[in-house]
């Protein structure tokens, strides 16, 4: 009697693999049709069927727009900060909450199609601490409320948008900060309509670059009181990238003059980079620069997590006689999260000295 041999069981995937594929699917209703690469970075080029699309005529309404926009597929609350310790040592801090609707339409409790993802990091000149959280919408584990403003996932929380408290915790670090907005919220792009490609992909996008931040970093070496400047980016869309776009380089800079610069460069497989910038005056007045004005040129690469990443850049914006070189505080600021990317504090030298944050995605 020949007994049937059972086919070998597939090995359980690692959490990483599971969620990597899963997160790509987060942004994509329906089964994943092809390899990740065909979907742009992190599936951000997925189709927007059933979701709302950004509208150039729409104007921000606060405080409601501080809250979530469930009709859109993806949305984030993205805060970065340049900090200084009592001994003058520089630090970087990140607190990010991503919302991703897995399907259009709402739902109660576990039936809510919303998935939330939190990233937190603290960067020193020699170390980069990262933590990541996932949570389901609808059950209270994670979410955002516009008024009074509250954003949370697990015990990471941010309460108050003008004057706020911000905390997060990982396996080997924690922070507890207070925020004070010293300027207005600044719409990016055309009154908040931020175009991402020549084909017209766009998002709603505003920033709060005028936060004063101070608080306490808890690192393996002990507690460090810090103070500095923070920058919030709020962005929502349903299909912000074209399938051809492979990643972006994004930078925010606080100049010593009180002026600010936001710039990004979207890289595409078969087209030149799409580069956009906003110059922000000390009173918060934005001047958007359409594609082609800002020039960003990689100066040198560093091997990070087994790949080459440009961690030094030359930025020029002729209209503002800007010509700076930016360099990472810690070139190894790798966010080893489910969807991995580079994110860390930088210092600018040249025509406009200052500090800021650099984010680079899609370097495989």
């Amino acid at each position, binding site marked *: 009697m020949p*007994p049937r041999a*059972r086919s070998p069981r597939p090995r359980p995937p690692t959490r990483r693999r599971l969620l990597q*594929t899963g997160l790509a699917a987060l942004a994509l209703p329906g089964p994943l049709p092809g390899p990740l690469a065909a979907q742009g970075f992190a599936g951000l080029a997925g189709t927007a069927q059933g979701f709302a699309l950004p509208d150039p005529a729409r104007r921000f309404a606060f405080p409601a727009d501080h809250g979530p926009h469930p009709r859109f597929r993806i949305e984030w609350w993205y805060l970065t900060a340049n900090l200084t310790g009592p001994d003058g040592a520089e630090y970087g801090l990140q607190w990010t909450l991503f919302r991703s609707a897995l399907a259009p339409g709402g739902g109660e409790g576990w039936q809510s*199609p919303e998935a939330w993802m939190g990233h937190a990091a603290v960067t020193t000149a020699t170390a980069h601490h990262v933590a990541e959280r*996932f*949570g389901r919408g609808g059950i209270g*584990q994670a979410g955002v409320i516009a008024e009074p403003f509250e954003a949370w996932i697990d015990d990471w929380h941010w309460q108050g948008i003008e004057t706020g408290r911000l905390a997060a915790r990982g396996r080997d670090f924690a922070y507890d900060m207070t925020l004070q907005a010293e300027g207005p919220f600044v719409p990016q792009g055309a009154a908040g309509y931020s175009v991402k490609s020549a084909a017209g992909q766009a998002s709603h996008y505003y920033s709060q670059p005028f936060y004063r931040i101070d608080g306490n970093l808890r690192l393996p070496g002990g507690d460090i009181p810090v103070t500095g400047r923070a920058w919030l980016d709020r962005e929502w869309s349903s299909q912000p990238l074209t399938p051809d776009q492979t990643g972006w380089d994004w930078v925010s800079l606080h100049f010593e003059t009180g002026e600010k610069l936001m710039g990004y460069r979207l890289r595409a497989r078969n087209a030149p980079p799409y580069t956009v910038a906003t110059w922000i005056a000390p009173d918060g007045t934005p001047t958007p620069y359409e594609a082609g004005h800002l020039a960003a040129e990689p100066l040198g690469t560093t091997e990070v997590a087994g790949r080459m990443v440009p961690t030094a850049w030359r930025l020029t914006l002729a209209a503002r006689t800007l010509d700076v070189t930016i360099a990472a505080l810690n070139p190894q600021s790798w966010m080893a999260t489910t969807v991995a990317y580079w994110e860390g504090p930088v210092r600018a030298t040249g025509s406009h000295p200052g500090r800021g944050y650099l984010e680079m995605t899609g370097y495989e």
Partner: protein
Amino acid sequence: MHAAGLAALLSHWRRHPLQLATLILGLALATALWSGVQAINAEARASYDEAEAILGEARFGQLLPEEGDSLPQSRYVALRRAGWLVSPVVEGRVEIVGVTLRLIGIDPLTMPTGLAPEGEAIAGDLPGFLTGPGMILANPADAPRIGDRLKARIVASAGVPPGVAYTDIGVAQRLLSRDGEVSRLILLPDQPRGLPDLSAAAPGLALRTPEQGSDVSRLTGSFHLNLTAFGLLSFAVGLFIVHSAIGLAFEQRRPIFRTLRALGLPLQSLVLLFAAELTGFALVAGALGMALGYAIAAALLPDVAATLSGLYGAEVAGTLSLRPAWWAAGMAIALAGTALAGAGAMLKVIRLPLLAPAQPRAWARASQERLYLFAGGAAGLTLAAFAAWRYGEGLAAGFVLLGALLIAAALALPVVLHLALSFGQHRARGALAAWFWADTRQQLPGLSLALMALLLALAANIGVGTMVASFRLTFTGWLDQRLVSELYATARTDAEGARLRAFLEPRADAVLPIWHVEARVARLPAEIYGVIDHATYRETWPMLAALPGVWDRVAEGTGVLVNEQLALREGLAPGDPIALPEGWRADVAGIYSDYGNPIGQVVAGLPHLVARFPEIEKRRFGARIAPADVPGLARVLRDEFGLPAGNIVDRATVKRFSLQVFERTFTVTAALNVLTLAIAGFAILTSLLTLATIRQPQLAPVWALGLTRRRLAALELARALLLAALTIVAAVPVGLALAWVLLTVINVEAFGWRLPMHLFPGDWLRLGLLSLLAAALAALWPARRLARTPPADLLKLFASER
């Protein structure tokens, strides 16, 4: 030179193919039973591991409610918001037309690494898993049976164990009607630093650390230990065969060994050749044994699976997979067994005097020293057995007791036989009778190994048979007591349950609700049943110990009944207080027997249970009715009330089903029993064949003195029967001792219930006659050969150097 030597050695087997077959078959059988049992165990354990892998019970700590079987979902969110990395699991059983599935709801976003074996399937379509009607992953065997009854996409997935399905926690809550409830929380290994103390953050939740293992492994451990013991016993018996075959071959090849040495083959080379030959046989026989073992395992596995499922609720795949470790272990045991069995012969080759006459001689004479050694060993082991019984604890001590007892009995056997034969010799009248007894005694050393094997096989047979039969007798009687209602009906909803009760009331003598909740009692899963105050229970319930007025106490709510398993586990006696879920405290009013149930059970007054668990399913009822009216009521229920036929069961069916489960439970035991006995019979045959050849020099003088060959052959046959009969008589007390240990020590430790021992002399008689028949058959062949030995051959013994 080596090639020629090897050819010379192997030529023996060409001339004695039967001997070769004996050797190979013996080793193959020994390996087969051992490896078959191992394969079954490995398959079952792998199935548990798969089931546990889903639940994360093997590797992760878990937070369980201290009382009840669920915690509010808000506790999960609160713990997350306090910083604890926990992942929720909701679990329950869903019934779909006769199929019961263990449905496990998980949250893929928070669950730890590798928790779900089919993570790929989830990851491939996370939105499909998390949103909409959801996705249910089930074993390919279960998937078609689920069909679309659960209103979710069913995905067949080979990695999901049978009887299990998993899905998103939201879907599971909906299907199990457990909205907002979580069964337990998995504690992720890497918690953030600086969190407050867990006990402060999670009051009312008990932490189960990963080492504590799952309920299934704990429950089934004894069953597998049982199987392993059987496998080991068979292996030992099989080795007796190999030992005698190798011994025989050595005796017959003495001239070859001497000649090879005389021709200049160095001793070292000879030993090497001999070892190579044995290794070759071991490999061939081992491979054959593994194939046989695989077949045995595959044949027995469905029964084992049924047993485990019926007895413990543990699901095991009914098919066998090949595991490299199992192959390696099987071949290793075959090699080790051959080495063990061949060690004696090997030593003799090394010590072989070059110039001594190359004559086979009867095996070592019965020496007083050897008998003293056996007697001493037996006495020591008996002491060890007693110590294990008196001072040992747990199942392991039970098996030490069992093992020591059996080996002691085996060692004592030659001593007992020697004494019996000496007694016979003293009583003998006449030269022939005296020679018969003395010669029988002389043969004891050569046969004692085979007889020991027979003793062990017989004792195991009697012991296990007595246990099973005692169990069956008790179980059948107990079933009659426990199945008090003539008809059982189950409604599909609580509302239908209420209508069902109203429908039954005027049509039956009494309607007994059978409602229960599953909860944790003393931190382990248990069932709490509610009973109404009714004469039926007072008259028939199988109580083992009780306080006076036990049923009044239950009716009042001051007392509850607990089953024997729970009482033994927690050391409860009537009058002791017991803590139940929902802060319920009561006294143990009585303890009742509850065979076949692996978990604890509590019986309480129904109104008191419903008051504490208002959400209890109120669907099942038993109806007391005259047996003749049962078919009529069943028909009315089906046709007028509209209950599906599957929801109406009469007592006879339940009883038949229960007995079926019981019988399947012991099918494996019975099969192993028969195989062990067969191997023992084979061992006797090979031993007798061996002796027959070497005994010719001892028989030739008797023949020369005038005894015919026929007469000699008859005496040989009688001798074998006498020895077998003596062994059978000796096996009865050993078997009974074994049964006693199984019933009062092993069963209590393994299952938690004590059983009365019943004696079945008819079974022993049958077994004894069968064994005698086997011995006779085994002896017949060598005896026939002796009867047909040409007189010239016997004469030659005087003429030649022998």
